[in-house]
């Protein structure tokens, strides 16, 4: 078996450019690696091998013709809720299993233009609703470090595949931590860009004011490459921002001398796993040694973030998911009349957690409850945004844990959704405030499960994430450690 699958995107691009390997070689290596690992991991929902190889051949032909697009021939896995023309896009839901996407998401179109081979649909919590990937209608994905444990969610399949090297890089989406938390649980790099940085057009909406497309990768440099390709204004997304996209690769090279990094204690919630706290504290120390100044910043409203998040997100979701009625697409269940058609389709098609969140969201928007829930949650959101504004007046980036714990055993929190929701405490404030966040590997627990460090930057300040993340990564070797699954080299 070739060892091409071990490469980062940066390394693969170098080999493709030099002619040391072809895109077809890379796709074949990936397929072989998937075959070796996915029986245990279930990271993929599907992978159309023939189509992937055909795309790779086209990429190789482009290269032979002198093309040198930045991702030419690089296989990219896609979380199953991002539309790729001609591919399924079930969103992990039973309801959308028969649906084939008629169009490319803007981020996908930009990847295509950059030469990427769009290869595989990655497992996820249904419609992005979950933190453990246990809410997939296809069955859970498993953590490559310990398959008895969850990979995190909702982009659990993407994180598991990247960590197990059955994908070079994957797209994920992050509404409340759905990229960063699984990245932390699986020991890879997870980037949630600022709201508006990447077009949401083609990303199946969970909570429109919080969703962002991002990447799960083996290195910070790969995350920067992916963002460079996907970022920028899109006329088809009114919430995308018309701002210059900086040169991320250049920003990454600057050292940490003179940087002020905020380290708020507010993220160290009660019940945090001491191993996680130790790893994060050590990482912060490491950043100090690399030349950064660590300062304390106050974030008094973080404690309300989870409550506000679950009101705002479910409210938006309750309407975003209303379109899945079986009339135009999806797994239709006939009823005697249109109302029953919709109701039967939804009853049969949605899983438990999705139903729970639709009901919750419907409730908080109901007449008479709107002010008490939705409006109040929006006020909390403003306060959290202000907390961050004040913090960023004093520092360049903020460091925190990604989650209070490392990956937990399958089923551990399934019966208690509230416990599961509380695990999102460190990540949801970033979405509520529209900021960017990066999860980078920073150590292991005593049970050898990976721990992530979260770097939070101001809105549109991804350069800072890459700078801190890359400098830290280059000074440590956490990111080079790989799980032993599938007979890893």
């Amino acid at each position, binding site marked *: 078996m070739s060892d091409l699958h071990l490469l980062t995107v940066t390394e693969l691009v170098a080999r493709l450019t030099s002619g040391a390997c072809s895109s077809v070689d890379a796709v074949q290596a990936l397929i072989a690696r998937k075959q070796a690992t996915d029986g245990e991991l279930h990271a993929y929902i599907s992978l159309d091998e023939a189509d992937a190889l055909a795309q790779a051949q086209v990429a190789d032909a482009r290269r032979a013709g002198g093309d040198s697009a930045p991702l030419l021939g690089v296989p990219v896995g896609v979380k199953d809720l991002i539309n790729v023309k001609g591919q399924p896009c079930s969103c992990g839901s039973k309801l959308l299993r028969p649906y084939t996407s008629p169009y490319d998401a803007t981020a996908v179109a930009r990847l295509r233009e950059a030469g990427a081979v769009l290869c595989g649909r990655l497992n996820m919590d249904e419609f992005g609703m979950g933190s453990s990937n246990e809410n997939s209608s296809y069955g859970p994905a498993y953590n490559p470090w310990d398959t008895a444990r969850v990979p995190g969610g909702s982009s659990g399949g993407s994180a598991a595949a990247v960590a197990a090297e059955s994908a070079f890089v994957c797209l994920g989406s992050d509404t409340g931590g759905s990229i960063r938390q699984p990245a932390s649980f699986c020991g890879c790099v997870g980037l949630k860009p600022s709201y508006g940085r990447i077009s949401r057009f083609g990303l199946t909406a969970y909570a429109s004011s919080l969703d962002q497309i991002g990447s799960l990768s083996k290195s910070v440099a790969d995350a920067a490459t992916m963002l460079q390709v996907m970022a920028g204004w899109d006329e088809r997304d009114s919430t995308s921002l018309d701002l210059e996209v900086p040169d991320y690769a250049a920003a990454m090279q600057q050292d940490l001398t003179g940087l002020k990094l905020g380290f708020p204690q507010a993220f160290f919630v009660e019940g945090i796993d001491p191993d996680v706290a130790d790893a994060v504290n050590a990482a912060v120390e490491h950043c100090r040694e690399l030349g950064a100044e660590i300062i304390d910043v106050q974030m008094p409203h973080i404690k309300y973030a989870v409550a506000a998040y679950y009101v705002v997100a479910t409210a938006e979701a309750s*309407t975003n998911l209303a379109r899945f009625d079986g009339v135009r697409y999806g797994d239709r269940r006939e009823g005697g009349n249109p109302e029953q058609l919709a109701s039967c389709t939804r009853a049969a098609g949605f899983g438990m957690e999705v139903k729970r969140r639709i009901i919750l969201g419907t409730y908080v928007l109901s007449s008479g409850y709107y002010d008490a829930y939705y409006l109040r949650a929006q006020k909390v959101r403003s306060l959290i945004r202000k907390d961050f504004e004040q913090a960023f007046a004093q520092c360049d980036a903020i460091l925190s844990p990604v989650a209070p714990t490392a990956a937990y055993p399958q089923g551990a929190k399934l019966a208690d959704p509230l416990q599961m929701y509380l695990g999102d405490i460190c990540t949801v404030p970033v979405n509520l405030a529209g900021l960017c966040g990066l999860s980078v590997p920073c150590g292991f627990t005593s049970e050898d499960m990976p721990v992530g460090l979260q770097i939070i930057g101001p809105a549109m300040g991804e350069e800072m994430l890459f700078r801190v993340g890359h400098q830290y990564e280059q000074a440590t070797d956490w990111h080079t450690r790989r799980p032993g699954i599938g007979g890893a080299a």
Partner: protein
Amino acid sequence: MKQDLVPTVGLETHVQLNTQSKIWCACSTAFGCPPNTNVCPVCLGYPGALPVLNEEAIRKTVISGLLLECEINLRSKHDRKSYFYPDMPKNYQITQFDQPLCLGGGVDIEVDGVKKRIRLNRIHLEEDVGKNTHYDHGSGVDYNRAGTPLMEIVTEPDIASPEEAFAYLVALKQILSYGDVSGCNLEQGNMRCDVNSSVAPRGSDTLGVKTEIKNMNTFKGVRDALAHEIKRQIREVKGGGVIRQETRRWDDLAGQTASMRAKEYAHDYRYFPDPDLMPIVLTTEQVDAIRASLPELPAARRARYVSDLGLPEYDAGVLVADKAVADFFEATVDISGDAKTCSNFIMGELMRLLNEREVELVDTKLTPESLAGLVMLSNAKKVNNQGAKAIFEKIFDQGGDPEAIAQVEDLVVEAEDVIAPLIEQVIQEHSGPVADFKSGKAAALQFLVGQVMRLSRGKANPQAVSEELARKLGGK
């Protein structure tokens, strides 16, 4: 119990804007295309598709607001209104809940010589839905219409009779046509009305329980349905019954309204701001620029026709009623320089033929150039009235140059030197009537004119002949 019950009526009128593309996507708004041909992931509500607001739709709504004397909200937003129905692709409608684009305003009407202002509450911009068709074996949905920009124009409860409702709709249509914001084509469903009505004792402080008649698409239907519904409510109340708050449907054939569904449990639409769209922010400068480009409204135009063109009030009123006709009139006057003759042709021949043929001006071959040519031909007395009418019908049906038509059809009146001997001949041959005329019987002159016309085979100008005869015979 005897009481004088009076109706209170308010209208919600949905007006489709005549933008080229839909409100959230680039799909065409063309009417009458095969089902589901003007659709895309956005207007079909596919997963991941996002709306982007059509700026032309904002502009046309602002134009409407200014023409209807509304206040333009410099900051408005769109909200989601949730309810399930198969014709609605997202199962929420994007509309404007608490911050509409336009507030207030009004429409002036006149019924039986009484002038009145119907105040508006608001105008908001929303999306139209698709269209359901029911067959024996099931139902079909056509989403071509889904996402057509729609203004909802809401009145205050200022309307007091079916006639006022009718007058309001006619005036509204006239203004919107002038603004070129909508096709205003009722057959194509460009204007659809929800009618709210209630009755209460005269002088009462509170309104009665209201009913709503949904989706009326003719003005006559609104008038008839309202007349029936008010009668029904009065009969109900006088008979000791109560009016239920409900939605009713107008059955045009049966000539009555019938209950559709009770509204006692008000639908909870769960409005909240649409997170996919940014608030609409307008500047005073933008609104002023639109204001500066507004077309002249019918009332102003009518006044100008009277003061500047010297037309009678009546002529001016008829001409401005339809913007297309008024525009055509002005273009014809610009070429011919004769407002009154243009007006006579338009009010006479044009209106008659439009009615007879049941067509609109755009459907005819008539151009300002051809009518102006006819006006000049007629003023130069090269054709007589009868000839002019014949030529008008030709240029109306087939187009063409009036002068050429006059030649081909042999309608040019004979020159004076051809007619003069004929007049002499008639005077010689009809001494009786000549004597009658001379002795004061004016009617005898008509006979003599007729004889000249006969001799000329209709190619004389009767008015000129009449004048010449009278001069020769020494009458007036």
